């Protein structure tokens, strides 16, 4: 016996079902957009059927016997990518923390706040590859260009995270500083900064993790690092080396994620009970 029928037999009046009109219309609109997009793409969909076979074929070429001869060079290039990511993250954080603080409500004046937010939004929209393409007319096709591009391209998102973090800090400490006669600068230094610091540090490490992935992308346009090596060997169709490089990229990225993630958790959650025992 279904539930409504059971309820009726017991004399319980069920509330009417909520209208499903809006979700249905949304679903139809979304579905239509997806169908239109599919129809508009010039893809021969029968190619899709061949893909599993192709992938298997190339997967075999890449991973059946990865060519480990070039591993030393690959490791140097991975370190170069990590270096780009790290220096880029430092540059990004050094610029975006003060600017983000100024863009936060309650810290910067309105005439500064809105232009800064506009700048962040514009930088967010420009792909980092384009920033790199402009920068390479200045510093050439070097890893330094990559680091600068990562640093500048990250400001948009990082700045947004900074002002959102600062704005989400509880009011209490700010009020206390203000009540004690502190200026806005004092509020920022003694109330907002200490409260926001752990989150900001965690976001800084997160920027490093993101940069590791992006630095491989910048390598593809020639900024150096593992991305350049990968794109070269893909162009040479040396699949056994490509396979080795992919393994190195995945392993290095996962390792860095794990280390940085562990540090971030330590920052955000504090010492675990066991660590506390050791410290005391």
């Amino acid at each position, binding site marked *: 016996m279904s539930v409504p029928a059971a309820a009726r037999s017991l004399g319980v009046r069920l509330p009417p079902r909520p209208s499903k009109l809006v979700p249905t219309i949304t679903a139809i609109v979304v579905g239509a957009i997806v169908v239109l997009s599919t129809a508009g793409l010039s*893809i021969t969909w029968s190619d899709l059927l061949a893909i599993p076979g192709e992938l298997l074929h190339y997967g075999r070429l890449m991973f059946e016997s990865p060519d480990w001869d070039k591993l030393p060079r690959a490791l140097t290039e991975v370190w170069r990518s990590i270096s780009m990511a790290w220096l880029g993250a430092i540059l990004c954080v050094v610029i975006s923390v003060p600017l983000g603080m100024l863009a936060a409500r309650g810290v910067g004046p309105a005439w500064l706040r809105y232009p800064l937010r506009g700048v962040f939004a514009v930088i967010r929209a420009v792909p980092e590859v384009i920033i790199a393409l402009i920068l390479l007319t200045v510093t050439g096709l070097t890893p330094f260009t990559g680091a600068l591009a990562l640093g500048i391209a990250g400001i948009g998102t990082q700045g947004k995270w900074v002002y959102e973090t600062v704005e989400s800090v509880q009011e209490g400490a700010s009020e206390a500083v203000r009540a004690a006669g502190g200026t806005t600068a004092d509020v920022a230094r003694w109330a907002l900064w200490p409260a926001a610091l752990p989150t900001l540090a965690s976001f800084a490490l997160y920027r490093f993790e993101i940069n590791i992935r992006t630095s491989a*992308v910048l390598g593809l346009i020639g900024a150096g690092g593992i991305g350049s090596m990968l794109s070269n060997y893909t162009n040479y169709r040396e699949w056994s080396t490509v396979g080795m490089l992919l393994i190195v990229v995945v392993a290095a990225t996962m390792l860095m994620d794990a280390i940085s993630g562990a540090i971030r958790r330590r920052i955000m959650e504090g010492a675990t009970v066991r660590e506390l025992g050791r410290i005391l």
Partner: protein
Amino acid sequence: MTEPAERLRIPPKPTHRLRTALVVAAFAAFTIATCLPAIGGVELDFAAIAKNWQNGAEKVGQLLQPDLSFLPRTIGPMLETIQMAVLGAAVAAVVSVPLTLWAARPTNPEGVTRRIVRFLVNIVRAVPDLVYATILVAVVGVGALPGLLTLFLFDVGIVVKLVSEAIDSTDHPYMEAGRAAGGTQTQINRLTALPQTWPLFANQWLYALELNVRISAILGIVGAGGIGRLLDERRSFYAYDDVGVVILEILVVVIAIEAFSNFLRRRLV
């Protein structure tokens, strides 16, 4: 003779000086190591900035004078970019639901399959997007298809990771109720976990769509279709006024999609 009652021992005030010194030292050592070209680090070349900054300023100047007569030619590729972004996000959205339920502890208490799915998703996430595009272009040929596959893989990676972690970190009294009522895991997932998680999913799908527009704008650089191909072509002709138009258009579309998805998000949450 007994001593006077032993004094309450107060633990010493924790000193952080050694720890701070160690953290700073580790930070400095890592930073210095990243600046050593001998072991693969980055060579900091500030002299080049001082010497050549005019070049960059000139390029930015050219970009700021976009040649709008080029605009009609960019519409087609831009449309392709948006279509790729939408379709990639849509297919990824469908695939991400079962994978997410497999990858989260409350919805899949069974350890082995959960670890396998998580491990695979982590691998998928560890490969950068343009690397997928490069390899897929080599495998399936130039066009929109490798771009679409790249976006799909990328989206599945982030949606599954973010949503499954969100499921892991929340309490689930409803699911307990379902279990107490004798539901199987599938029934519990279907009737309690899913309705609760839809807003999370929707949020991340929209986020994936935003990222897709941004990424697919550059996928064309490696031959994976969309506006990026045009961008790369004009750049290799040094037609920076045309490049300016394309960047401007990407900017407008990205901001429009962001505004649209923020609007949807406010309605959802």
